[in-house]
Structures are given as C-alpha cells and as structure tokens.
C-alpha cells in the first residue's frame, strides 16, 4: 500500500481566513463596534478617562469570564457567580467595615471562602453527577439570600482607602515623568515587543514541525492591529492617570490562563473532558477531580471579582452582582465557546467580554435606556452564536 507522506498544502490567505473565520471575525467585530461607538459618541468612547473607565467597569466580568471559560469548556455552566461575587463583597464589607478586621486578612479569607463555595458546588457536580445547571442555580439563590442576610438588607460602606486601591488605584509612575505617564508608555512598548517575540518564536517552531501556519502577511496584519491597539490604549492611559491596578491584575491573569489552557497538561485534560468525558476517563484522566477543580477555580475568581467590585463601588450592596452571571456567560459564548464543551479559548472569552463592555459603555454614553441595551446585547449574543453554527454547518 502506498504511504501518503504528503504535507499539509500551503494555503492561500483567503482559505486560511475562511478556516479561522471565527477568530478573525471576533477581532474585526470588536474593532467595528469600537469604531461605531467612537463615531456615534462623538469621540467620547476613546477619551483617556473613558478608556480607563472601560477597564475599571469591566474588570470583574473579564476576570470571571476566565474561570467561566474553563467551566464551559469542561462541559458545565456556573449560574451562581453573580451571587457569589455579591456575597463575597458583603463578607468583605462586614469584616472590614463592621468588624474592623485588617484588609489583608479579609482578602485572604474572602478568596478562601470563594474557593470553598466553588468546592461545594463542584463536589455535587463532579462526584454526584448532579447537572451543574441545577447545582449552581441553587447556589445562585442561596448566596443571593446569604448576602441579603449578611448585610441585613442595607448597604455597608465605605471602605478604607487601602482597600479601595484594589480597584481604583493606579500604579505609580516609576519613570517619574508624570504626564504622559512613562510607565504606561514603556509597558505598552514592552507588551508589543513580547507579543511579537512570542509570535515569531511560535512560527519558527511551527515551521520546524511542518504545521500549517498563518500566512506571513496575515500574521503581520493581525499583529499590526493588535500592536496599534495596545500602543493606542497605553498612550491614552498615559495621558490620564497611568495604568490602573486592575488592568495589571487582569493582564497577568489573562496571560496565566492562556498559558494554562494552551500549554499545560491540566489545560489539555480539561478540553479532553469537555470534548468526550467517557473517552477521557478511559484514557486515564481523572475527570471528576478536574471538574471539581474548575469549580474551585471559578469560585476563587468570583471572590476576586467580588472584592474588586466592592472596592470600586466603595460599598457592598445586597444587589451587587445581580444578573452579572449572564454577562459573563454571554461573553464566553460570544468568544466562541461551545455549549457542549471542549471548545473555546481564553482570548476569545476576553474579547467577548470587551465586546459586551464596549457596548454597555457606548450605549450608556449615548443615553440609550437599559431596556434597549438589554435587547441589543441579547441580539448580539444570538448573532455571534448563529455565526458559529452557520460556519460549522458550512464546513460539514
């Protein structure tokens, strides 16, 4: 029999884009939406103060989207994150404001509490095989109720200065330039350099193993857009107050989770469990433990989001985090994750969260009522998922 050792044919740019339409489409959609709101808001959207606001407003959604992506890739869902986020904020308020405990202790306890909440929910999902929809629906009610109880129905605040910095603080300009902020500019340039270096190194490695790769022109165009965006954003931030603390934690977390999902064995195994749990189990993967851990992780990130949110509002309210789970889940699905598990990327989820964030922000600036905002966000979610399904059908 003839051994066919033909290599992957080198594809044209068009064919490559067609095959990766989802990833490029998402980037193009984000740019288009930003351009649209930039025009209709008369340039308000991309003002330094508003860009800073965009990050501050959406940080907690993005942070939770990282965990939600893992949960959804593993084939589950977590409806409780909004309530958990609110509950942790309430817990922090009670500990700091009412009981006067130190901030560092409170933060430690809150993160551990979030993990414990995730562990309990994950235990029922992973080891008792109760559908995650039901377990976390119960969690959503329980923790909404518990935050009401903790706060006794009142808003509790304000927080001390050092806790607020978690969300509203800015990294001091180490370069000492002042305005524009030297650190912001330098880190923008550094980030662009790093992204290019990693990209080129990856291409070299792919070429060595004969993997089919993005055409070089496309690589340049894509990176040029990303680089321009980063430099633009850091330039703008430099003219306001520099790099927000929250931006730093967001970027670090995103990088960590990209690495975790794409390069580590544990990431691979989560995708395998979501892709086919039975086959994964029969391949020696401890599927229950992995599922359990994705929920623990989700609980941890929901707690972090809760702290950041409370710090930003400078108060804990019983309604904090209400319906936020829907924004988080929508961001992950807009980002291309599949409801049936096994498919989805961190970068997609983060982009999806930004798309939601820019729309929220842009529509608010335009003064569009909350009623229409909901309708439009819903339609965007439907359109994104329709686009996925349409492409999948066309492939088949």
């Amino acid at each position, binding site marked *: 029999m003839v051994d066919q050792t033909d290599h*992957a044919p080198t594809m044209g740019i068009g064919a490559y884009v067609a095959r990766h339409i989802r990833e490029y489409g998402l980037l193009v959609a984000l740019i288009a939406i930003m351009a649209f709101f930039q025009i209709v808001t008369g340039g308000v959207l991309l003002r330094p103060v508003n860009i800073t606001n965009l990050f501050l407003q959406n940080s907690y959604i993005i942070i939770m989207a990282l965990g939600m992506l893992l949960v959804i890739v593993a084939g589950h869902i977590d409806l409780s994150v909004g309530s958990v986020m609110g509950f942790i904020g309430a817990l922090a308020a009670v500990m700091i404001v009412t009981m006067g405990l130190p901030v560092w202790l409170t933060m430690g306890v809150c993160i551990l509490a979030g993990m414990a909440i995730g562990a309990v929910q994950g235990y029922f999902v992973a080891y008792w095989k109760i559908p995650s929809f039901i377990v976390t629906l119960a969690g959503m009610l329980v923790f909404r109720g518990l935050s009401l109880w903790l706060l006794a129905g009142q808003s509790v605040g304000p927080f001390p200065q050092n806790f607020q910095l978690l969300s509203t603080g800015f990294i001091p300009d180490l370069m000492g330039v002042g305005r524009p902020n030297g650190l912001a500019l330098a880190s923008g340039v550094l980030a662009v350099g790093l992204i290019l270096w990693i990209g080129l190194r990856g291409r070299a490695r792919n070429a060595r193993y004969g993997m089919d790769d993005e055409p070089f022109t496309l690589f340049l165009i894509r990176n040029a857009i990303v680089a321009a965006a980063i430099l633009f954003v850091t330039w703008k931030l430099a003219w306001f107050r520099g790099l927000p603390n929250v931006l730093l934690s967001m970027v670090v977390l995103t990088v960590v989770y990209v690495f975790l999902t794409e390069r580590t064995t544990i990431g691979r195994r989560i995708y*395998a469990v979501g892709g086919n749990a039975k*086959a994964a189990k029969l391949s*020696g*993967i401890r599927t229950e433990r992995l599922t359990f851990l994705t929920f623990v992780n989700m609980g941890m990130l929901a707690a972090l989001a809760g702290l950041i949110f409370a710090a930003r509002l400078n108060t804990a309210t019983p309604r904090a985090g209400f319906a936020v789970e829907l924004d988080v889940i929508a961001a992950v699905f807009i980002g291309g994750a599949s409801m049936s598990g*096994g*498919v989805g990327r961190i970068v997609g989820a983060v982009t999806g969260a930004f798309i939601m964030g820019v729309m929220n922000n842009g529509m608010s600036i335009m003064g569009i009522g909350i009623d229409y905002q909901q309708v439009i966000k819903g339609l965007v979610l439907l359109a994104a998922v329709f686009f996925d399904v349409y492409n999948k059908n066309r492939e088949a």
Partner: protein
Amino acid sequence: MGALLRMDRITKTFPGVKALDDVSLEVAEGEIHAICGENGAGKSTLMKVLSGVYPVGSYEGQITYDGQPAAFGSIRDSEDLGIIIIHQELALVPLLTIAENIFLGNERATRGVIDWPETFRQTEALLAKVGLRETPGTRVDTLGVGKQQLVEIAKALSKNVRLLILDEPTAALSEGDSQALLDLLLELKGQGVTSIIISHKLNEVRRVADSVTVIRDGATISTLEAKGLTEDRIVRDMVGRDMAHRYPERERRAGEVVFELRDWNVGHPEQRDRRMIRDLSMQVRAGEVVGIAGLMGAGRTELAMSVFGRSYGRDISGQVLMHGRPVDVSTVDRAIAAGLAYVTEDRKTLGLILDETIRRNTVLANLGAVATRGVVDDGRETEVAETYRRSLRIRTPSVFQKVMNLSGGNQQKVVLAKWLFTDPELLILDEPTRGIDVGAKYEIYSIINDLSAAGKAVILISSEMPELLGLCDRIHVMNQGRFVGELTAAEASQEAIMSLIVRE
C-alpha cells in the same frame, strides 16, 4: 423480471472531493441486491442520492424508478414511491412505544386525533409479519438492538415498501439475530419486496444476495451474479488487488506469563444480586494473542472494562497480577501505570475525542510523556503523532486533522496509536475491526501481529469467529460471565466454538 431501479452515471461532488464518480447501479424487481465496498467507497452517498437526502440537482446523472424518471427533492418524495432506507444508526425514539414509533409521522388518525385501537391492530399485524413477539405498547428502549432493527423493518412495511435499503443491518447484531434478520429479508423477497443491502460481511452477502455490485473509490467496479461467487472475488474487487491471505502470517512463540487474572467476580452496576462475571481466571503470556469468543451479552466487554480501572460493575473481587506480582488496577490511571491498555469497542463514544486533532488524541493517555513539569511540548507531541501516523499508516494529509474527518479504519488506528504510546505490556482489544473495511482490517491484523512479535501480550475480543481463528493462539469461550471452554489454535473451529456456547 425487469429493472425496478436504474441509477445511471451518478456523479456527486462535495467541495474538494468527488464522492461519486460515474456510478451506475441496476436493481431487478424482486431481488436482493448487495452493495459492497470499503469504507469511504461511496456506498452511503449513493444511497443518500437515491433516497433524496441529496435532492435532485445536487448531483449529476439519471435515476429511473419503476420505468419512470425519478427526481426526489426530499426523503418524503422517495418514501411516497415506496423507497425506504434503514440507516446504520437506528432512527427510533427510545422512550416511545413500538406502535408509536412505527406510525411516527404517519399516524393513524382522523383530523389529528389518533385512532389507538386501529394503530395497535395494524402494529400487531406488522410485528407478526417481521416475526417480533412483543406487544405494540412495549417501549423501544427496553428492546435489544436486534429487535429494534425488526421494529425499523416493520415501520418500513407500514409505508408499503417496494424497495428496502438496509445500511449495514447486522453490524451491531449477534450471530443469532443476524441470521433471523437475513431470513426475514428472504421472506420479504418472497412477498415481492426488493432489497438493497450494504454489508461488510461477505458470508451474509453470499447467503442472501442475488447479485452484488462492488464500489471502489466512488466508481462501480463490477456487478456480479451472486451464484457461484466466491468471497475472494468480492474482496479482490473491493480492494483492487488479490488478497491471498485474509490474515497475515505470524510466528507463534509465547514467553513467560505477563498477565494473570485470579477469581475475578463482578457485580451488575445496578442490580445488586446479579453477577456479571463469575470466578473467572486467565493467563496471557508475552507474545501471545488470546481470544475471547462469545455471543453479545456474554460479558466479554464487562470483563475487560472491569479489569481496566473498574470502569464497569460494582463489588469487584479477585486479583490482577503482572509478571506474577499483584497490581492495583482500581482506577484507569493505575491500570495504565500497571501496563494495561484497553481499546474500546465503541471508538466514537469511548475511544476518541472527535472534535480534536489526531495529534492530541494520540498523546491523550500519556500526556505526561510529552510534557515537562506540566507544560506540554507541542513539538515533541507532533513528532510522536507523526511517528505513529507513519508506522500505523494512518491515511490523512496531516496529524492536525480532526479525527472526525477520518474513515473508521483510520480512526481505529488513532485509538491504537494512543494506546501504543502508553507502551503497555498487555493490550485488550475489544472488537478492533468492527465496522471497518477489508483493507484496513488487514492492516489492523498486521499491527496486532507486530505487537505480539514485540513481546506484548494481547487479549482479543471479537464477534467475528474467522478473525479469532485467524489471529489467536488460544481462544476462551465465554458465556454468561464464565469461561465455558478453552481451545488451542489447532483445536479451534467455528463449529467447536459454537458448540461450546450452545452446550451451556
């Protein structure tokens, strides 16, 4: 008798692939016509063209049915003329009753109100016709696959079938059920129903078919009278070459005992007092291929799964020894660490992650070997996948293909690659050639022989007796959770195995 169906020069193109290239098929009224061909040869595509799944206009060529040119826009159109197709994956609704399934979409009703007495009466008549002794109110999920197949045929009969198309009807059936189904086909033929049967099982084809059309690479190779036709001739046309030996030669030499099972007992996962495996013991030596024969439901898969990380059953007792030392096989990762590998019966739902690439599936069971401190080296991963692609001859443009795009035989090779990469000492192969074509089967057999030559111990579970006879050094015959006999290669024959099974 004249031709009931003529498909003339059918060509069907998918983006980038010519699935059918000038295929012609002529089926005489009242005959049983077999279509044979390797996986991916185009058999199913041809049947989809015929039944209107691919509507007229999406293919080139001419279909003449019952003397009239036919242009089917949908399945409904072809069904109206009595062309009914029964797919490999049965299309019954498990939670509905037999009667509800048979008349689904075709209800006995006046103005939307179902006439249940009439439905049940007609169902009973149909069940009698196909020889299924069940009441119309029985829920379909309580029936075995064989009986479900009969329900499908009864459903076809309810639509006044003239041309019945069966796609691999016996692939999932036991020997007994298969025989009953084939007898039914012959009986229907007596009543004037014409059938087209797609099958890999050439002995069945020879038994029931009047003529045979062989398709290879999307083209008709030959149409032959079944009378006096030999299996070798069909195989030759299917693979395009002579296959002197259906089973590759192997030097048989057994080394020391690698794997031993002692007093293995397994309880049913739900029914507490039911034991699925009873006091079972066995040994496999290095370089030995040991077969396990038995009917469906004899407990063969249950045995394999219970040994492999207790993936089946409860209250498991007994001992597993490797090289004479007891080992812990209580979870799958421990079983793998002990040197066991299990190639599952159902590769799509239990063996592969279809949405992932060949590369990722290959390393799945031994991810640690291509990773350093938990970080996967995708270069090393690619090299591993490439090595197995070449050595197992997985036919694919690259290891970055998703496995769902591969044919059955190539998918099975990916599963084998996954387990070979764990470097096991004992491989348990559960129906490794089910549903794959003759050429790929031969390659799988060669791989099994290479493994045993390399000193691996192999347990082969198979429902195809010729396969067991062609490959194994010893064969255990299993029935109702026990070994009821053991035959050496010299003693074994289909008759000997069968008589051991029925003697119980």
